[in-house]
């Protein structure tokens, strides 16, 4: 997990992300696509906090992603035109929902846990879908825009400056990633690893497993709602599809695609997923079946994900 190469890997990742808007066009992309990679990567990494490092599969992370998105959208549209306030409230809403739902489902394991996370996720989907007057229903929440940042001494325009917004998202992404990495390398993070490896043993080493699982779930969902707020800000729009269980499935695909045992794996998975989605969906309607096929091939031939495969090659 750590190893001597960790520091240089991190530096490489930061370098690649910091320059991404400048070379994105050469792989058929554009600045907003680069931003989308970051947003999806943050969501996939937050899911992987739970999946890869605690050993628990959630199929309902879109719920928290969407709650974050609706949170920021509603604050800006209805309450106060402030991007930071919107982000804070969006994250708070997603986190509180995760605290409540987490407490209800934390005794479940494996497939049962995954199923119930889907079910709870769908509850939020239907609320967003049906509650027209507030959420805009099927059409989503429109007619609001991300607001400029007021730093006191200067104002940072985010709306018509795709590049500025990219770096705004990158800053948040890196802070969030650093937070998750620190937690995973802490004593608390090691208790999660212990639970992943052998839950019964963890219990008899004095770890209250349910409590730690709950915390891990809440932390994971908090970062996922953060990603959701950025997603809404990127598009100046949010609709119920952000909450749909298919979106949760995409996060899982990204994590597994990139390699769920490596910290940056989901970033690689998200990059592949987002770029591929953009490329194929502009040529065919059935892009999901291509991604599905690609996914099956990866799982068949590289069970450790793309990054896991590269690691293995390079260590041979």
């Amino acid at each position, binding site marked *: 997990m750590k190893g001597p190469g960790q520091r240089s890997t991190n530096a490489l990742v930061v370098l690649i992300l910091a320059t991404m808007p400048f070379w994105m066009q050469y792989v058929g992309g554009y600045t907003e696509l680069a931003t989308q990679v970051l947003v999806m990567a943050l969501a996939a990494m937050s899911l992987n906090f739970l999946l890869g490092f605690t050993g628990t599969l959630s199929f309902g992370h879109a719920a928290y992603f969407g709650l974050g998105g609706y949170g920021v959208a509603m604050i800006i549209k209805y309450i106060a035109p402030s991007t930071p306030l919107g982000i804070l409230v969006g994250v708070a809403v997603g986190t509180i929902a995760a605290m409540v739902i987490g407490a209800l489902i934390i005794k479940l394991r494996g497939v049962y846990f995954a199923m119930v996370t889907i079910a709870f996720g769908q509850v939020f989907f239907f609320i967003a879908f049906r509650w027209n007057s507030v959420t805009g229903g099927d059409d989503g929440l429109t007619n609001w825009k991300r607001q400029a940042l007021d730093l006191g001494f200067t104002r940072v325009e985010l709306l018509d400056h795709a590049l500025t917004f990219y770096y705004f998202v990158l800053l948040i992404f890196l802070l969030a990633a650093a937070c998750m990495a*620190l*937690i995973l390398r*802490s*004593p*608390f*993070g*090691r*208790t999660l*690893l*212990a639970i992943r*490896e*052998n839950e*019964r*043993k*963890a*219990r*008899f*080493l*004095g*770890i*209250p*497993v349910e409590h*730690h699982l709950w*915390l891990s779930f809440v932390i994971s969902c908090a970062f996922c709602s953060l990603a959701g707020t950025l997603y809404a800000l990127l598009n100046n729009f949010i609709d119920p599809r952000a909450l749909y269980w298919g979106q949760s499935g995409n996060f899982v695909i990204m994590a597994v695609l990139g390699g769920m045992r490596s910290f940056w794996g989901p970033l690689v998975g998200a990059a592949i997923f987002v770029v591929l989605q953009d490329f194929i969906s502009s040529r065919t309607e059935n892009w999901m079946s291509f991604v599905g096929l690609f996914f099956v091939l990866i799982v068949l031939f590289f069970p450790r994900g793309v990054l896991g495969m590269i690691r293995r090659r390079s260590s041979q």
Partner: protein
Amino acid sequence: MSLLRVENATRAFGSLVAVNDVSLSVAPGKLQAVIGPNGAGKTTFFNLISGFFPPTSGKIYFDGKDVTGLAPHQRVQMGMARTFQITEIFPELTVRQNLRIPVEVAAGLRLRPWISRRMRDEIDARVVELMLQGNLEDKANRLVGELSHGDQRATEIMMALALKPRLLLLDEPTAGMGDQETYDITRLIRKLHREQSLAIVLIEHDMRVIFHLADRIMVLTEGRVLADGTPDEIAADERVQAAYLGESH
């Protein structure tokens, strides 16, 4: 006063009464052996003591407090640690990582999202100390799953010790081992018992190990206590000879 007191513990699985009205008292620093044929209820008895499941009836006291309704991690916190008949470790983690987790739990750090450098050095030092005690220092960075059965056992015992227990429950620590490994583990247990005045309850099949180590021996058959006494008393007990020792010689 006794450190562990089990009062009339009974555990039924459906119609099968695996542990039937068993009482036991272990004084601080003593080594209590539990023997009996396969299926006698020894492991079930450990599960009751350590809180894996509750007794159908009866009470468990640790350090004078009723712990019958407490969860395993709460009993660990009070100073009770156990190993399992079938080794339970983190096979995909290194020896160092395996030991580090219980060391951090024992230091009260399990909820810490960060630790200071000084704290980390202390943890590292304690991990090294445990590896030295368990003769594992040259395997520090090996995955535990790749080690020999004996070294896995030693790792598991050291993980339990990392919790700084006052009572250690060992379920057949030498099961499935060759002579050399059995000897090594026995020596380790004796050393820990002597040097740290640790109370130990030991389930064991190997009679040489038992009579070598135990202060007291309890014999279980079909869930009931057949005899409980010093090694000499047990060796002289006719019922034990007839029911248990007799058939294995």
